[in-house]
């Protein structure tokens, strides 16, 4: 009787061993594992798509303004008429007027051109504001400004906070004390109040010190103000992580191997906090967009007539009865952006480190 083919021979055992070995040795990087987890989270991916779509739309604002709407974000058309479905309609109509015959004012509500939904050759798709400006163009430009500030300030804030956290956590001692107390000092102020105070002060004359010159209307002002006020909110938790990692064996091994502080901080510690930083970065963009909206709403962020979602809501609230879309449309844009970023941020956190408790608190 012949030996069954499945019997183990020395060769097949070796083959199996080598296959097992292959499986065992082909490791998956934490990033790959995270991606595998993330791609199963359809809700987070959908949110990412929404956010990317919003960014793409806003990035195309100049193209839309020039080739479709044929107007700039600050161009006033109050005295003009536009053809809607072939019918000439005033951009800003209605309103009270003085009747010379009766020597009295006739009181009427002003009528702003509402959304034309492509019935006016691409002009005033989302209607006009009280100055006769194209709301769609201002919405896209406003989004562009809000996103520039949100993403820009998140980059600056995260970079500075991580560097400070690494220095404080690794070196400890007096440097840690100084950095932590500086964080505490900023932390002691309510975020929005501190941002309003700085934004208002800088918006009058700009910033002209230390060889840096920023003009009053520059987007750098809200960007830097928001970066500054949120540094401790990223820096403190990251410092805590660095402090705990500082005591791990791999750091001691690196020190034993003769690695210098900079190499340990940026080659050993930084990769270990990268997932936390990435999640923070995502969440802080959403947070910064909200802070910018708050600042601009209160007149301490993006300067008029330049639009941002915050100042569009502020401008629209006076016309909430006759033109509710003026405040609603930018409000919805903010909700969608922040919601999509937060959901994606949560998904990213679950994917990178499900046990982590990373969240923005202030």
């Amino acid at each position, binding site marked *: 009787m012949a030996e069954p083919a499945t019997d183990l021979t020395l060769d097949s055992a070796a083959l199996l061993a080598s296959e097992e070995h292959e499986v065992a040795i082909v490791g998956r990087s934490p990033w790959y594992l995270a991606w595998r987890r993330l791609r199963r989270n359809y809700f987070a991916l959908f949110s990412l798509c929404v956010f990317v779509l919003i960014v793409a739309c806003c990035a195309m604002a100049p193209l839309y303004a020039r080739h479709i709407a044929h107007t700039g974000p*600050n*161009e006033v058309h*109050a005295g003009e008429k536009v053809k809607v479905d072939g019918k000439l309609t005033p951009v800003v109509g209605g*309103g009270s007027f003085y009747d010379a015959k009766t020597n009295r004012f006739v009181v*009427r509500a002003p009528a702003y051109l509402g959304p034309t939904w492509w019935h006016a050759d691409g002009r005033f798709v989302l209607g006009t504001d*009280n100055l006769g400006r194209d709301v769609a163009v201002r919405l896209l430009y406003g989004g562009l400004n809000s996103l520039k500030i949100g993403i820009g300030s998140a980059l600056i804030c995260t970079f500075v906070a991580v560097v400070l956290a690494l220095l404080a956590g690794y070196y400890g001692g007096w440097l840690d004390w100084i950095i932590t107390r500086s964080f505490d000092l900023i932390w002691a102020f309510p975020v929005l109040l501190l941002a309003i105070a700085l934004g208002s002060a800088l918006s009058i004359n700009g910033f002209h010190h230390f060889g840096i010159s920023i003009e009053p209307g520059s987007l750098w002002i809200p960007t830097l103000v928001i970066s500054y006020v949120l540094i401790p909110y990223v820096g403190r938790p990251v410092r805590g992580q660095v402090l705990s990692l500082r005591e791990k064996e791999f750091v001691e091994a690196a020190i034993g191997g003769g690695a210098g502080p900079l190499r340990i901080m940026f080659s050993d510690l930084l990769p270990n906090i990268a997932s936390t930083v990435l999640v923070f970065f995502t969440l802080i963009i959403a947070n910064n967009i909200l802070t910018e909206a708050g600042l601009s709403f209160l007149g301490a962020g993006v300067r008029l007539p330049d639009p941002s979602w915050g100042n569009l809501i502020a401008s629209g609230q006076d016309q909430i009865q006759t033109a509710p879309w003026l405040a609603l449309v930018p409000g919805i844009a903010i909700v969608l952006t922040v*919601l999509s970023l937060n959901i994606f941020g949560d998904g990213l956190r679950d994917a990178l480190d499900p046990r982590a408790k990373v969240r923005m608190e202030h």
Partner: protein
Amino acid sequence: MSSKRRWTWLLTALALAAGVSMMVAAYGVAASKSTKAPQHSQKAVGTLRAVIDTIDFLDPQQAYTGQSWWAMWNVYETLLTYKHVDGPAGYQLVPGLAQSLPTISNNGRVYKFKLRKGIRYSNGKALKASDFKWAIKRGFLATGQGVGFYTDIAGAKKYSQHPTKSGNISGIITNNKKRTIVIKLAKPRGDFLTILALMFAAPVPASTSTAILNGKIPGTGPYRFSAFDANRGFTMVRNKYFKKTKYIPRGTPNKIDVALIGDANAAVQRVINGQADYTNAAIPPDRIASVKSKGKLVLRQTANTYYFWMNIREAPFNKLKVRQAVNYAIDRGALQRIVWGGLGQATQNVLPPTYPSYRKLKLYSHNVAKAKQLINQAGAKNAKVTVWTRQVSDAVDAAQYYTSVLNTIGLDAKLNVLPRATYYSTVGNVATHAQTGWARWLEDYPHPLDWFDVLLNGNRITDTDNNNYAWYSNKKTNSAIESLKKAQVLTPAVNGRWATVEKQIMQQAPWAPWSNRVFPEFFSKKMGCIHTQRLYGIDAIRLCRK
């Protein structure tokens, strides 16, 4: 993401959507209905409940806002005052504390008054002629906002340099026994009678401290302040020592309760809800049509001019063609709709139409093509311009329009919005080199000098706190204003000369005036007769219920 978290997000999104929907529903547009004013029998008001947005002070030597003066006019009397009547007659000066109008010397420098007999303050003490002198001195001692009006009194300039309680203003001679006040001016001033009718010159007891005493200083008017809270409001009750005169009535309300509420919507809602009888809140343009059916809407014409100034010392506005181009480019009619929903009249004049010196100017019809042409001719294409305005919604709207117009005609304009509190001092500082911007002027007193002398007389330009934001100075105009200062009475000939001055100025176009605004005043349906005094606004002491 855990399913729990997912649900949390969904619920958050739903809550947000629901919130937005509720907000929209809450602001649902009510159909506006026009109603005829019903016939009514007049009833005393009892307690008048008013809501106003803000006041600065309730101290006669300090207050300098229309809202404060609206209340104080019924508490503090001045030597001369204005009639409690509707219409143009409200501008007529009549004796207040004085027995009659003063005698004025031929050279226009000496004014002689005699006080009425038996006038008492609300604390029962008798008014003395010397109290007038103390009021003027108190203004200087407390660096009150109106002291500049009185520096033409002989000795006042010297006194203002080192003011002391015991110091003297030689140009004010009083006799308590004879109840006479003689005022000597260093130089004649045609608007001096109207200046004496300003609240700053209201006599106060000689014992009154120089500290700011809001609502605590006794007055001689028909009412007195009985309570004051800077954040909530104040109350006025009858002054039992007041005796009515030919020109100052006793007043219909027994009590006037004034609440201070900055939010116009909240103020209006109070009136609609029956919690208040009246508000002067700046109702948002798009709400006016819907609220008018819920109460009584009165549109009050006041003397005001809204304008864009152009600094003739700064390029490109140092060129006449650029300034003219701006005047041609502005669509004044559209601006009325943009800024206050049409509740204003387009103007090209400095003076408001309520003045007898007013002659309607039609120098610049709306013509953008001509404006562009003028900019090209002036070689100012792409010239950099900063437009200045203050952080108040109507000013920001107007300035945004203005910035857009400047860009349309070929300039390169950007907007600079300053906080409300620092705006005028910043643009009125020569060091700012402000090129152009938004401004408005509401009359202090009804006289052309309050406009031309304060705002456009080159001789009065100062390096700081300058009111002439255009830095406009023209020899011909300056001398005409100085000459007209001497005119004691606004005769038709004098009014004609003022009109000529105005035309001269507007031909040089340092301003682009664009609106004479009307102010909405909102009353509850229970209010009957409503009276407006041209200078002080709603005449609270002549109101009545249905």
